[in-house]
Protein backbone atom coordinates (compact mmCIF):
# COMPACT_ATOMS: atom_id res chain seq x y z
CA UNK A 1 0.00 0.00 0.00
CA UNK A 2 1.29 3.31 -0.92
CA UNK A 3 0.11 6.77 -0.11
CA UNK A 4 -0.26 9.25 -2.87
CA UNK A 5 0.82 12.62 -1.71
CA UNK A 6 -0.26 15.56 -3.82
CA UNK A 7 2.52 18.05 -3.55
CA UNK A 8 1.19 21.52 -4.38
CA UNK A 9 3.56 23.39 -6.65
CA UNK A 10 4.63 26.97 -6.19
CA UNK A 11 2.16 27.86 -8.94
CA UNK A 12 -0.68 26.19 -7.06
CA UNK A 13 0.05 28.27 -3.99
CA UNK A 14 0.12 31.38 -6.12
CA UNK A 15 -3.24 30.59 -7.73
CA UNK A 16 -4.81 29.72 -4.38
CA UNK A 17 -3.55 32.88 -2.78
CA UNK A 18 -4.64 35.22 -5.56
CA UNK A 19 -7.97 33.42 -6.02
CA UNK A 20 -8.66 33.77 -2.31
CA UNK A 21 -8.03 37.48 -2.60
CA UNK A 22 -10.36 37.75 -5.62
CA UNK A 23 -13.05 35.70 -3.85
CA UNK A 24 -12.86 38.02 -0.90
CA UNK A 25 -13.50 41.05 -3.11
CA UNK A 26 -16.24 39.13 -4.91
CA UNK A 27 -18.09 38.35 -1.67
CA UNK A 28 -17.61 41.84 -0.35
CA UNK A 29 -19.14 43.24 -3.54
CA UNK A 30 -22.09 40.84 -3.35
CA UNK A 31 -23.06 42.45 -0.06
CA UNK A 32 -23.36 45.90 -1.65
CA UNK A 33 -26.87 46.53 -3.00
CA UNK A 34 -26.99 47.19 -6.76
CA UNK A 35 -29.61 49.09 -8.75
CA UNK A 36 -29.52 46.49 -11.54
CA UNK A 37 -29.49 42.74 -11.16
CA UNK A 38 -26.14 41.30 -12.10
CA UNK A 39 -24.42 44.67 -12.30
CA UNK A 40 -21.47 44.88 -9.93
CA UNK A 41 -18.34 46.98 -10.24
CA UNK A 42 -16.43 43.73 -10.76
CA UNK A 43 -13.42 44.84 -8.75
CA UNK A 44 -12.38 41.20 -8.38
CA UNK A 45 -11.30 41.57 -11.97
CA UNK A 46 -8.45 43.75 -10.73
CA UNK A 47 -6.78 40.54 -9.51
CA UNK A 48 -7.45 38.73 -12.79
CA UNK A 49 -5.99 41.57 -14.85
CA UNK A 50 -2.96 42.08 -12.62
CA UNK A 51 -2.27 38.31 -12.67
CA UNK A 52 -2.59 38.24 -16.44
CA UNK A 53 0.06 40.90 -16.89
CA UNK A 54 2.39 39.59 -14.19
CA UNK A 55 1.99 35.78 -14.38
CA UNK A 56 0.30 35.15 -17.73
CA UNK A 57 -3.04 33.94 -19.03
CA UNK A 58 -3.14 30.45 -17.52
CA UNK A 59 -2.95 31.67 -13.96
CA UNK A 60 -5.43 34.49 -14.65
CA UNK A 61 -7.89 31.99 -16.10
CA UNK A 62 -7.59 29.72 -13.04
CA UNK A 63 -8.18 32.61 -10.68
CA UNK A 64 -11.18 33.80 -12.60
CA UNK A 65 -12.74 30.33 -12.73
CA UNK A 66 -12.07 29.60 -9.04
CA UNK A 67 -13.51 32.93 -8.05
CA UNK A 68 -16.85 32.22 -9.77
CA UNK A 69 -17.02 28.68 -8.42
CA UNK A 70 -15.95 29.25 -4.81
CA UNK A 71 -17.57 32.69 -4.65
CA UNK A 72 -20.96 31.25 -5.58
CA UNK A 73 -20.55 28.36 -3.14
CA UNK A 74 -19.85 30.79 -0.33
CA UNK A 75 -22.62 33.23 -1.19
CA UNK A 76 -25.01 30.34 -1.82
CA UNK A 77 -25.81 31.01 -5.45
CA UNK A 78 -24.07 27.89 -6.82
CA UNK A 79 -25.93 26.53 -9.89
CA UNK A 80 -28.53 29.30 -9.62
CA UNK A 81 -29.28 31.68 -12.50
CA UNK A 82 -26.91 34.18 -10.90
CA UNK A 83 -24.16 31.56 -11.07
CA UNK A 84 -24.95 30.83 -14.72
CA UNK A 85 -24.69 34.53 -15.54
CA UNK A 86 -21.51 34.91 -13.56
CA UNK A 87 -19.93 31.88 -15.20
CA UNK A 88 -20.98 33.00 -18.69
CA UNK A 89 -19.42 36.39 -17.98
CA UNK A 90 -16.19 34.92 -16.61
CA UNK A 91 -15.79 32.47 -19.51
CA UNK A 92 -16.37 35.16 -22.15
CA UNK A 93 -13.97 37.57 -20.51
CA UNK A 94 -11.20 35.03 -19.99
CA UNK A 95 -11.66 33.83 -23.57
CA UNK A 96 -11.33 37.35 -24.98
CA UNK A 97 -8.36 38.06 -22.71
CA UNK A 98 -6.70 34.90 -24.03
CA UNK A 99 -7.09 35.96 -27.64
CA UNK A 100 -5.92 39.52 -27.02
CA UNK A 101 -3.03 38.37 -24.82
CA UNK A 102 -1.81 36.17 -27.66
CA UNK A 103 -2.10 38.96 -30.24
CA UNK A 104 -1.05 42.05 -28.28
CA UNK A 105 0.89 40.75 -25.25
CA UNK A 106 2.46 43.64 -23.37
CA UNK A 107 1.57 46.21 -26.03
CA UNK A 108 -1.69 46.58 -24.12
CA UNK A 109 -1.66 47.61 -20.48
CA UNK A 110 -3.88 46.86 -17.51
CA UNK A 111 -6.44 49.47 -18.53
CA UNK A 112 -6.88 48.10 -22.04
CA UNK A 113 -7.24 44.52 -20.84
CA UNK A 114 -9.55 45.56 -18.06
CA UNK A 115 -11.94 47.34 -20.43
CA UNK A 116 -11.91 44.39 -22.82
CA UNK A 117 -12.56 41.98 -19.98
CA UNK A 118 -15.39 44.08 -18.59
CA UNK A 119 -17.09 44.30 -22.00
CA UNK A 120 -16.79 40.58 -22.62
CA UNK A 121 -17.98 39.83 -19.10
CA UNK A 122 -21.04 42.01 -19.48
CA UNK A 123 -21.82 40.70 -22.96
CA UNK A 124 -21.61 37.09 -21.78
CA UNK A 125 -23.78 37.80 -18.76
CA UNK A 126 -26.27 39.69 -20.84
CA UNK A 127 -26.54 36.92 -23.41
CA UNK A 128 -27.10 34.39 -20.64
CA UNK A 129 -29.79 36.58 -19.04
CA UNK A 130 -31.45 37.03 -22.41
CA UNK A 131 -31.56 33.30 -23.07
CA UNK A 132 -32.35 32.30 -19.51
CA UNK A 133 -34.92 34.84 -18.36
CA UNK A 134 -36.60 36.85 -21.05
CA UNK A 135 -35.74 36.33 -24.70
CA UNK A 136 -37.48 39.62 -25.42
CA UNK A 137 -36.03 42.14 -27.87
CA UNK A 138 -36.99 44.93 -25.47
CA UNK A 139 -34.26 43.72 -23.16
CA UNK A 140 -31.72 44.84 -25.74
CA UNK A 141 -32.67 48.42 -24.93
CA UNK A 142 -30.84 47.95 -21.65
CA UNK A 143 -27.67 46.77 -23.36
CA UNK A 144 -26.23 50.27 -24.00
CA UNK A 145 -26.66 51.17 -20.31
CA UNK A 146 -25.05 47.96 -19.14
CA UNK A 147 -22.16 48.45 -21.55
CA UNK A 148 -21.66 52.02 -20.36
CA UNK A 149 -21.41 50.73 -16.80
CA UNK A 150 -19.02 48.02 -17.99
CA UNK A 151 -16.84 50.69 -19.58
CA UNK A 152 -16.78 52.82 -16.44
CA UNK A 153 -16.04 49.94 -14.08
CA UNK A 154 -13.60 48.35 -16.52
CA UNK A 155 -11.65 51.60 -16.66
CA UNK A 156 -11.73 51.92 -12.88
CA UNK A 157 -10.52 48.33 -12.29
CA UNK A 158 -7.85 48.88 -14.93
CA UNK A 159 -6.49 51.94 -13.17
CA UNK A 160 -6.38 50.08 -9.86
CA UNK A 161 -4.73 47.07 -11.48
CA UNK A 162 -2.13 49.29 -13.18
CA UNK A 163 -1.31 50.95 -9.86
CA UNK A 164 -1.05 47.54 -8.23
CA UNK A 165 1.33 46.18 -10.87
CA UNK A 166 3.69 49.13 -10.41
CA UNK A 167 3.99 48.28 -6.70
CA UNK A 168 4.84 44.65 -7.45
CA UNK A 169 8.57 44.02 -7.76
CA UNK A 170 9.21 42.05 -10.95
Amino acid at each position, binding site marked *: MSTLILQPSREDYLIACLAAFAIMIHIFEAAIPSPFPGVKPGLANVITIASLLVFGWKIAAWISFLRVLVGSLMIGTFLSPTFAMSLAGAISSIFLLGICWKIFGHRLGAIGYSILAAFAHMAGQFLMAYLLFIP*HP*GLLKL*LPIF*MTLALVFGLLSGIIAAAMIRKVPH
Partner: protein
Amino acid sequence: MFKTGDKLVLISALVFVGWLYGQFWFSDGRGDFAQITIDGKEQQLVSLAENKILEMRGKTGVSELEINDGRIRFKHSPCPNQICVHAGWLEHGGEFAACLPNHVAVEIVANNTLFDSINF
Protein backbone atom coordinates in the same frame (compact mmCIF):
# COMPACT_ATOMS: atom_id res chain seq x y z
CA MET B 1 -0.12 54.56 -16.89
CA PHE B 2 -1.94 54.52 -20.24
CA LYS B 3 -0.13 52.71 -23.02
CA THR B 4 -0.95 53.68 -26.63
CA GLY B 5 -2.83 50.41 -26.96
CA ASP B 6 -4.90 51.22 -23.88
CA LYS B 7 -5.87 54.58 -25.33
CA LEU B 8 -6.95 52.91 -28.57
CA VAL B 9 -8.99 50.33 -26.65
CA LEU B 10 -10.65 53.11 -24.68
CA ILE B 11 -11.49 55.09 -27.83
CA SER B 12 -12.89 52.01 -29.60
CA ALA B 13 -14.87 51.17 -26.47
CA LEU B 14 -16.41 54.66 -26.44
CA VAL B 15 -17.28 54.38 -30.14
CA PHE B 16 -18.78 50.94 -29.52
CA VAL B 17 -20.97 52.13 -26.64
CA GLY B 18 -22.07 55.13 -28.70
CA TRP B 19 -22.99 52.81 -31.54
CA LEU B 20 -25.02 50.65 -29.14
CA TYR B 21 -27.06 53.67 -28.08
CA GLY B 22 -27.72 54.55 -31.70
CA GLN B 23 -28.71 51.00 -32.47
CA PHE B 24 -31.05 50.28 -29.58
CA TRP B 25 -32.29 53.64 -28.47
CA PHE B 26 -34.25 55.05 -31.33
CA SER B 27 -36.88 56.63 -29.13
CA ASP B 28 -39.93 57.09 -31.33
CA GLY B 29 -42.20 59.48 -29.56
CA ARG B 30 -44.98 58.70 -27.21
CA GLY B 31 -46.02 55.08 -27.36
CA ASP B 32 -49.52 53.90 -28.13
CA PHE B 33 -49.31 50.40 -26.68
CA ALA B 34 -47.68 48.29 -24.08
CA GLN B 35 -46.50 44.90 -25.19
CA ILE B 36 -46.57 42.58 -22.19
CA THR B 37 -44.53 39.39 -22.34
CA ILE B 38 -44.91 36.60 -19.83
CA ASP B 39 -42.30 33.88 -19.64
CA GLY B 40 -40.74 34.95 -22.90
CA LYS B 41 -43.54 33.87 -25.18
CA GLU B 42 -47.06 34.70 -24.13
CA GLN B 43 -47.55 38.19 -25.47
CA GLN B 44 -50.34 40.63 -24.93
CA LEU B 45 -50.85 44.04 -26.41
CA VAL B 46 -52.76 46.66 -24.47
CA SER B 47 -53.76 50.14 -25.49
CA LEU B 48 -52.46 52.94 -23.29
CA ALA B 49 -55.55 54.98 -24.13
CA GLU B 50 -57.71 53.33 -21.46
CA ASN B 51 -56.85 53.80 -17.80
CA LYS B 52 -56.95 50.50 -15.99
CA ILE B 53 -55.19 47.99 -13.77
CA LEU B 54 -53.98 44.73 -15.27
CA GLU B 55 -53.14 41.64 -13.30
CA MET B 56 -50.51 39.48 -14.95
CA ARG B 57 -49.89 36.01 -13.59
CA GLY B 58 -46.20 35.23 -13.88
CA LYS B 59 -43.86 32.56 -12.59
CA THR B 60 -44.05 33.46 -8.92
CA GLY B 61 -47.27 35.42 -8.57
CA VAL B 62 -49.32 38.30 -9.87
CA SER B 63 -47.71 41.48 -11.14
CA GLU B 64 -50.07 44.42 -11.07
CA LEU B 65 -49.67 46.87 -13.95
CA GLU B 66 -51.29 50.27 -13.93
CA ILE B 67 -52.19 52.22 -17.06
CA ASN B 68 -52.84 55.89 -16.56
CA ASP B 69 -52.82 58.86 -18.91
CA GLY B 70 -50.99 57.04 -21.69
CA ARG B 71 -48.36 55.58 -19.36
CA ILE B 72 -47.85 52.22 -17.71
CA ARG B 73 -45.97 51.04 -14.61
CA PHE B 74 -45.49 48.07 -12.34
CA LYS B 75 -47.69 48.92 -9.39
CA HIS B 76 -46.96 45.78 -7.38
CA SER B 77 -44.87 42.77 -8.15
CA PRO B 78 -44.07 39.67 -6.12
CA CYS B 79 -40.31 40.12 -6.24
CA PRO B 80 -37.87 40.80 -3.39
CA ASN B 81 -35.95 43.70 -4.90
CA GLN B 82 -38.85 45.61 -6.56
CA ILE B 83 -36.66 46.80 -9.41
CA CYS B 84 -39.64 46.77 -11.79
CA VAL B 85 -41.71 48.91 -9.45
CA HIS B 86 -38.87 51.38 -9.03
CA ALA B 87 -38.54 51.66 -12.81
CA GLY B 88 -41.61 53.91 -12.57
CA TRP B 89 -43.76 55.10 -15.44
CA LEU B 90 -43.02 54.00 -18.98
CA GLU B 91 -44.28 56.33 -21.66
CA HIS B 92 -42.18 56.52 -24.79
CA GLY B 93 -41.66 54.01 -27.57
CA GLY B 94 -38.93 51.55 -26.66
CA GLU B 95 -39.08 52.07 -22.90
CA PHE B 96 -38.89 48.82 -21.05
CA ALA B 97 -39.24 47.36 -17.59
CA ALA B 98 -39.20 43.80 -16.40
CA CYS B 99 -39.80 41.79 -13.27
CA LEU B 100 -37.13 39.16 -13.77
CA PRO B 101 -38.16 36.82 -10.92
CA ASN B 102 -41.78 36.81 -12.09
CA HIS B 103 -40.86 36.62 -15.80
CA VAL B 104 -43.07 39.58 -16.72
CA ALA B 105 -41.77 42.21 -19.12
CA VAL B 106 -43.41 45.37 -20.43
CA GLU B 107 -42.31 47.35 -23.45
CA ILE B 108 -43.82 50.48 -24.94
CA VAL B 109 -44.44 50.36 -28.66
CA ALA B 110 -45.55 53.12 -30.97
CA ASN B 111 -48.15 52.55 -33.68
CA ASN B 112 -45.80 53.13 -36.57
CA THR B 113 -43.19 50.65 -35.42
CA LEU B 114 -45.73 48.02 -34.48
CA PHE B 115 -47.87 47.71 -37.57
CA ASP B 116 -46.94 47.28 -41.21
CA SER B 117 -50.35 48.51 -42.31
CA ILE B 118 -53.66 49.67 -40.85
CA ASN B 119 -57.04 48.19 -41.75
CA PHE B 120 -60.19 50.30 -41.49
